[in-house]
């Protein structure tokens, strides 16, 4: 198991290398000169040249790339053009915000979608199933930005119950330990800060979670229904097992394998797909950061973020493979 993990992690190195090459090439091919972003419009040609050489932009492209790779290996993605700060610091500062959002959304989606899916599967074509399916389709089809704006209008505007954006109310001053505000608040014993963080999380989590709930519900339903047709379910019934035991202990355990795959994939898209939601809710995460980076042609920032996304995806997939071995004894890693 340990050997397998190490091999998988080692296997990500060439992937990251290819991705960095691709991103570097794409950024170079994009129109526009980054120097325009670094200097004012009135700058003289001398100033522009000085800036160009200071940032290493006068070097041949392959030198720029090799320098980038050399630094990246040491955990240095260079300076952000826009923020004039190390890219790594920027990302590390904002990553917990995105992860916190994605994790809570996934938890909510699983907590609602999984039982609903099993419930629908246990009574196919019943009222529960039909309503669940319709709701699930709504969840999958509602556009994030629209739902987000609608919820802001309703709950932040009309009812004034929840904050319309951001992660926390300014001035609470909770000590940062993990970067997850809910956890930091608990560590510090600041219940007011915990309540504040949860209130900020509510709307974006609902928006992100709605889509995922729908997908998890549909997949769970289909997978449980399929497993209920299996021979071993008939065996379980012939043993006198009650409907509940047949459903949860026998069919659901097997259905979980397909569901876990989807949860993992969706979790990955949540982290990257949260760009829109983070923008709508002014959530200071890496999605928001990426959007800023793109609009300012902040090449080091974009490259660094894409590499972080790639690494996250690889790690999530690795985690899913590990979970498989727990759920399904037939799967052995090695």
């Amino acid at each position: 198991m340990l050997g397998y993990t190490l091999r998988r992690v080692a296997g990500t190195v060439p992937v990251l290398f290819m991705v960095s090459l691709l991103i570097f090439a794409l950024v170079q091919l994009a129109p526009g000169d980054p120097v325009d972003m670094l200097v004012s419009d009135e700058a003289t040609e001398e100033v522009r040249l000085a800036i160009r050489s200071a940032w290493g932009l006068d070097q041949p492209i392959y030198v720029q790339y090799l320098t980038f790779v050399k630094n990246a290996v040491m955990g240095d993605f260079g300076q952000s053009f826009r923020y004039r700060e190390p890219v790594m610091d920027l990302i590390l500062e904002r990553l917990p915000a995105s992860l916190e959002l994605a994790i809570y959304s996934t938890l909510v989606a699983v907590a609602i979608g999984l039982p609903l899916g099993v419930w629908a599967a246990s009574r196919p074509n019943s009222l529960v199933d039909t309503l669940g399916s319709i709701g699930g389709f709504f969840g999958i089809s509602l556009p994030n930005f629209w739902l987000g704006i609608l919820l802001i209008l309703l709950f932040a505007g009309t009812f004034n119950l929840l904050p319309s954006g951001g992660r926390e109310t300014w001035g609470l001053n909770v000590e940062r330990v993990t970067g997850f505000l809910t956890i930091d608040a608990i560590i510090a014993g600041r219940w007011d800060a915990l309540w504040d963080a949860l209130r900020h999380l509510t709307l974006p989590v609902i928006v992100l979670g709605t889509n995922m709930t729908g997908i998890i519900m549909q997949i769970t339903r289909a997978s449980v229904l399929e497993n209920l047709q299996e021979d071993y379910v008939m065996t379980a019934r012939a043993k006198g097992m009650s409907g509940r035991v047949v459903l949860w202990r026998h069919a659901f355990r097997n259905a979980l394998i397909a569901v876990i795959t989807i949860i993992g994939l969706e979790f990955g898209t949540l982290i990257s797909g949260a760009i829109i939601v983070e923008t709508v809710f002014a959530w200071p995460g890496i999605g928001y950061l990426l959007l800023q980076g793109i609009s300012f042609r902040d090449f080091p920032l974009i490259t660094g973020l894409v590499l972080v996304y790639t690494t996250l995806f690889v790690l999530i997939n690795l985690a899913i493979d590990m979970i498989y071995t727990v759920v399904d004894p037939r799967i052995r890693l090695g």
Partner: protein
Amino acid sequence: MTEDLLRISDLAVKFRGTPDGALAVKGIDLAIGRGEVVAIVGESGSGKSVTAKSIMRLVEYMGAEIVGGRAALSEKSGGSIDLLTLDETRMQGLRGDRIAMIFQEPMTSLNPVLTIGQQLSEVVVKHRKIGRAEADGIALNALQQVRIPEPERRLRQYPHELSGGMRQRVMIAMAILCKPDLLIADEPTTALDVTVQAEILELLKVIQRETGMAILLITHDMGVVAEIADKVVVMLKGEVVESGEIHAIFNAPKHEYTRRLLDAAPKLQARQEGSDQKERAAETPAAQDKDDANVVLSVRNLVTRFAVRQGMFQRVVANVHAVEGVSFDLREKETLSLVGESGCGKSTTGKSIMRLIRPNGGEVLLQGRNLEGVGASEMIEMRKRIQMVFQDPYASLNPRMSVEQIVAEPLRIHRVGSPSEIRDRVHGLLERVGLTRAQASLYPHQFSGGQRQRICIARALALNPKVIIADEPVSALDVSIQGQILDLLAEIQEEFSISVLFISHDMAVVERVSDRIAVMYLGEIIEIGPRDAVLGSPAHPYTQRLLSAVPIVHPDQRRNRTLGARELRSPIRPPGYVHETPPLKAVGFEHYARMA
């Protein structure tokens, strides 16, 4: 006569969504006495399995409903309860306790994500209301009773770690945990190899004797019935056509359908009396003198191994020696059968000859031409002369092609004739295999299994091959259909002078079609010879074991067999293993066997 344990009267079952008149089971009557073994015999669609699952009320989970009848199960206290009107909760209390069931497919009938121990003890916990530890003890006892080696270890294992025979033993253990009055066994040995089938049947007999439970056995195989049953019920299309005491059924079958089923059972023991359809091989040795001229296909020292890879660099850690030093000649118009149990390499041999799998060594000579050196274009030419018919007619026809397209495809690939000539040839072929011209435009799903296999045969015939390799061509078919397909194969073999390499595990079929038989074990041919010699006086111990495992023809011939489960021997060897295949020794006229 014993007291009736279960009396079914006028049972009628209907699948939801079918018209009102179309019943799957049409009002049948059936009685099972305490400690009695009753067999329901019939083919697919006869309603035998639906009947069995109706007793357990499991049909309700298969989209069917019981529309009439009674199933009176007698109570220990006297009196009886009607199973068909019991509420679900009380029914759950009976299932697995007083009535237990085992199924056909041991590979899929156990839950893959729970250990054997978990699956066994949940039954006891449910019905006996005791703790896990005590339940584990009862589970262990049951595993010992079904003679599983190392029962303690099995409790912690998962189903995929056990062979098919072992899993069926686990299923039986699961069924006898609560000492049921009635065990319903739905085709319990159909999916198993013949030697394993013999072990499982013996085990069922012994456990039945030990516990005194009644058994309702569902099967299509009269041989299995002869081995174990006290009473027989023959079903056809949802109705009971004949029922009675076993000797009466076997000695004087009244219904024509019963006679047909009896005819389909293997008659290895009865063969000396001469009930043969094919005496050609034995009686005309002149036709098979050592003249190589009539050898159509010659296989020399064929070796096929599959590498088992592991680790980061996919290093070869072992080899599956699927085919080792296999040699034989197939003569003109001859049928040579390759027999053996699953995993013995018989199918791989067929595929290696066709070069669907690339063999690691050896030669295949088709009409004197070595297939080893031929180039790609020439191989296409050679494929014309050697065609294959596969086991599963449901999977080997492209569902999106019409029958005409399917049969014409080889002709098109090999560019034989104009479109109208191809059409005429396809129609001719379809008529030859017993289908009509009008059926040419239909699609595979519109045909029954037997008809589909006819289509496969027509496709194989399209290019006028010299050799047909038939890989278990009738194993997926009902016995009465099997006969028709085998007759068809024999006819076209005679008509088109085709040699057939017949790959099968089924001794009844092999006995019927073969001129010669080759027995395979762990990748090697261990005995080869004329049919009557191999079946009548088998020389190799494995052949003897294989033949003695074939179910008997008549209940009078019952005998005791070995009971213990054998671990399967594996053809997996470490890399670099030098496989010795010593030559076979002559033990009779053209009869060779591996002798120690």
